[in-house]
């Protein structure tokens, strides 16, 4: 059991069905959803019944994973000594094909989170979910909510319409940077492209496993397109990416950059340095089999600042109370539980002295 100072950088309130979100929508969208008989906008990336979507002992019969605040409080916040937790809602609005429908759902979810989670539990903070399908609408949503200091991050799915480094998305990044909000990239996809580089696999399990590759690809895109040259202070938090992909990725990114960096002359820093300065990763899942491997991977990553403590509640990533990977030093645990989140999310400091 940890001290009650731990900051959980990835917790999931269960986003409700469309019917529950209707009060947070304009007349037009309320009418549209009702008249068209539309619901069922839960993401393919997290089927509600799939084992990943809810740890078995956290599942409440007849309810969506993570739907109940009281359960989150006892199963996660109290249980793991969490002083602050950042809510990352996963909603069909983030992946909708229609820009405007996506924006309507995202806005409704943000307002619903304020009323049902942030206002009711002072330990909670949240990410602003935005319709990345339409960067200009996403910017509007950031501007609409940035005044509420309990929003500490802008959240995007890991696969969108275009690779995330492309200048198409820079208005989102500029708006976030302006308000001191990091960009959280969460596992999951708009499914505009096949979930693997070789097409559509037969199993959800492969879709999920391949998320790590997706994070790697987006990291290459962010570095190569030069967003860290344009906004050197901006941090990207890779949420639920797995962690053990980082060492081999860093090695190859450096090697490739040394070979063909002339193609991207604005990238003057080694990818290893950029990653250690601008990228943060949440620690669930970690994807390593035992203590010795975890220790070696942490050494290889060679950057204590990069790790952010997370439960990924209610997703099923660990058993019992094994919320942190085995074998981390007390100093590193302290860093990832508190120091690193506070350094990554400037707004968290406003409530924690």
């Amino acid at each position, binding site marked *: 059991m940890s001290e009650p100072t731990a900051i959980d950088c990835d917790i999931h309130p269960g986003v409700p069905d469309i019917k529950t979100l209707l009060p947070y929508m304009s007349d037009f969208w309320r009418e549209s959803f009702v008249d068209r008989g539309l619901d069922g906008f839960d993401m393919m990336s997290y089927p509600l019944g799939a084992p*990943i979507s809810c740890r078995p002992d956290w599942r409440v019969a007849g309810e969506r994973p993570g739907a109940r605040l009281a359960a989150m409080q006892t199963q996660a916040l109290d249980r793991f000594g969490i002083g602050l937790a950042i809510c990352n809602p996963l909603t069909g609005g983030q992946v909708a094909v229609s820009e405007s429908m996506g924006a309507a759902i995202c806005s409704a979810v943000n307002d619903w989170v304020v009323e049902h989670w942030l206002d009711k539990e002072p330990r909670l903070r949240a990410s602003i979910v935005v319709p990345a399908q339409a960067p200009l609408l996403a910017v509007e949503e950031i501007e609409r909510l940035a005044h509420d200091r309990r929003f500490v991050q802008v959240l995007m799915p890991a696969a969108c319409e275009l690779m995330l480094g*492309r200048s198409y998305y820079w208005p989102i990044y500029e708006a976030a940077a302006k308000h001191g909000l990091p960009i959280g990239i969460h596992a999951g996809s708009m499914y505009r*492209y096949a979930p693997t580089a070789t097409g559509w696999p037969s199993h959800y*399990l*492969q879709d999920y496993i391949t998320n790590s590759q*997706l994070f790697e690809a987006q990291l290459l*895109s962010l570095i190569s397109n030069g967003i860290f040259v344009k906004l050197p202070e901006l941090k990207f938090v890779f949420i639920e990416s797995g962690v*053990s992909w980082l060492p081999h990725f860093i090695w190859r990114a*450096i090697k490739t950059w040394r070979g063909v960096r002339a*193609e991207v002359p604005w990238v003057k820093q080694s990818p290893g340095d950029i990653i250690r300065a601008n990228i943060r990763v949440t620690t669930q899942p970690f994807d390593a089999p035992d203590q010795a491997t975890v220790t070696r991977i942490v050494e290889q990553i060679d950057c204590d600042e990069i790790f952010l403590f997370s439960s990924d509640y209610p997703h099923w990533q660990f058993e019992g109370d094994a919320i942190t990977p085995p074998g981390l030093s007390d100093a590193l645990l302290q860093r990832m539980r508190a120091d690193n989140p506070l350094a990554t999310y400037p707004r968290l400091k406003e409530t924690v002295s």
Partner: protein
Amino acid sequence: MNAPVDVLQHRADAESTYGIIDCDIHPFPKQGALNRYLSERWRNHVAEYGQMTCGIYAGRGNYPRYQPYLSRRDSFPPDGGPPGSDVDFIRRQLLDPYNIAYGVLEPLLGGNNSRNLDEAAALSSAMNDWQVAEYTDPEPRLRGSILVPAEDPGAAVREIEKRAGDWRFCQIQLGTKTFEPLGRRKYWPIFEAALKHGLSIGMHTGGSQASAPSPGGWSQFYIEDHQLGTHSAATQATSLILEGVFDVFPDLKIVLIEGGFGWVPHLGWRMDAHWSKMRSEVPGLKHQPSAYLKTNFWYATQPVEEPEHPDDLRQTFEWIGWDRMVYSSDYPHWDFDDPHLAWRFQMTAAEKRQVLHDNALAVYSFK
């Protein structure tokens, strides 16, 4: 046809008692060289329509590379023609100086990926004839790969049947970028034929551009695409394992070529971590997913990983298993790995022999 030569018996030199086996050498045709192996119908077709790729250009890949022919500047044959087109120069620049006992040819001409399946079959067959006539016959240290039109497994099996008894071929070649993940049942006749004829499958990074290079879409730069190539190897391994290919074909041997290998331990850990919770979706799997990475796959070493701390390269070899690693040079391409200089850590003589020689003999049967 020349008689097969047991080169291993004849290539010992003063420095080592074994010749090196190089699993990745790229032959390239001189202008028009494939024409003589194509029927008139397909010569005309290729002249008129080119190759029906899934790309944006009619004559090249989507991502402009950084070197002419992707090749070392010193690999252009003195008598003209593109790198890899002159067997005598391959002999002088690679086989002799490095004491290569066997070199596995990996033609990367894309013809086997045509959307037109009949064209893919015709070009595969032509490239197979071309490899043996222009490389293996004059230089039996070089062995061919049976190119197949993978998207038409029936035709692929026919091509395998046609070549399987020919000592000049040592494996079946597939690209890592197929139209569908390779584990899907459509492709199983190819695996069945491979096993029937005792042939391993060399899966070289690259192939069709039917899918974007990442689930996030199309990268903007070659510097991204070059690294993303490793993903297609990893995702094919995942597909073959999760679809149960090795439970049905337990003796199937796959060599992943030019896909890197730093990702292999991670993929095993990640597959296991999430399979342990979602095994109900793949109930037929007989072992935990990482187990297959150590029984059915071999990893060609080029382009070798270059960790920031050299010890980590040894650690990576140990995590994967020394018996899985097979040397490849990628000659004549720009990121060629020298068999003696590529490694940034000290191998023992025994370890080096495993990687440069012994392990490949567990995969390939050179006749």
